[in-house]
């Protein structure tokens, strides 16, 4: 009982002393944190609760879009690679076609030149017979197989025309023959024209 009483007194005494001490303590300099420190802490506190953009909500959509773009790009690349040889063939075919189309034009220009080299009566004779004109003197001798076939046919036609002129008694056949020999020096002449 006495100890409880003494404890109570001690507590009261302690509280009284602390109150007095507190009054003295309150008169001490009241330090405060620097303003910069306040700002730093308040900024930190505000940043901590700032609402961040909700990227997670549509995060799956972002991933899906990326995957779709990737698949599309891959498909395009594969498709392009598959089509690449076919296009090459087409290009080669186009080039061949263009060269084939260019050959008759070349022949045509060569014919024109040969015609110009021939005299007017010769032209009229040839035209009269509706035969193709003789190959020009400067015509290329090394031709492709197909082109060589055409030249041979034309040469034969030309020779036949010359034979017909000979048989018809047209004296111009000699001139024609000379022109033919000049343009086709290696072409074998038929027996009728050898003399």
């Amino acid at each position, binding site marked *: 009982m006495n100890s409880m009483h003494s404890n109570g007194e001690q507590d009261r005494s302690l509280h009284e002393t602390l109150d007095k001490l507190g009054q003295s303590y309150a008169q001490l300099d009241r330090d405060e944190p620097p303003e910069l420190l306040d700002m730093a802490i308040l900024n930190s506190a505000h940043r*901590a*609760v700032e609402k961040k953009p909700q990227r997670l909500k549509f995060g799956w959509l972002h991933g899906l879009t990326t995957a779709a773009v990737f698949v599309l790009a891959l498909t395009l690349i594969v498709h392009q690679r598959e089509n690449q040889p076919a296009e090459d063939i087409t290009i080669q075919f186009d080039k061949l076609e263009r060269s084939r189309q260019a050959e008759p034009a070349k022949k045509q220009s060569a014919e024109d030149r040969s015609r110009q080299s021939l005299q007017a009566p010769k032209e009229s004779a040839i035209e009269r017979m509706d035969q193709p004109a003789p190959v020009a003197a400067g015509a290329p001798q090394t031709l492709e197989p197909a082109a060589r076939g055409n030249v041979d046919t034309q040469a034969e036609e030309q020779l036949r025309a010359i034979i017909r002129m000979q048989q018809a008694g047209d004296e111009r056949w000699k001139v024609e023959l000379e022109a033919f020999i000049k343009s086709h020096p290696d072409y074998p002449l038929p027996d009728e024209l050898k003399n």
Partner: protein
Amino acid sequence: MYAQLQVQNATEISSCLLGGLSRIRYAANMRELSDEVLMQRYARGDARAFDELYARHRAPLYRYFTRQVSDRATANDLYQGAWEKIIRARDRYRESASFSVWLYAIAHNHLVDHYRSSRLVQQVEMDDLSDHRPGPVEDVIDGEQNEHLLAGISALPEEQRTTLLLKLETGLKMEEIARVTGVSTETVKSRLRYAVGKLKRSLVE
């Protein structure tokens, strides 16, 4: 046209006034709220609740540190560190706990961690107050009258000094100081008695 502009200006002014008034009203409401409610609001994302809480506790908490450590830079670091811990721990706060107890428990643990890491725990003997060494608080205090009291406080053993400062700065009850420091209420009383006795002797001398 002019009338329309006037109406528009009047609307803007009134909305500004209303916004200002609502802000003032909001701040006034904040001041009426308890620490515990403010902390819960902050934990839910209301930054202005923290502003009010900070304004209430900044100075006592700052002095709690400045009167415990030797230099101001360390005190500043400890003070900022304690608040950072509070900010990070906001989701763990429960309203059932007193905010002041929670705040000073975090601050006290932060200080103890600092002592442990820097090995600055003062092992002052209980009856060795006459061996008065210059304390941390003396460096920043001017005036002879205050110097004696602050010198006496700074010369106290760490546990007694912490307990006394918690009592003088925060006004926490014995039971609350016991929860902050993690000891029994009787230990708190005992530490306070020793601290007061030593201070009395030092002030008489």
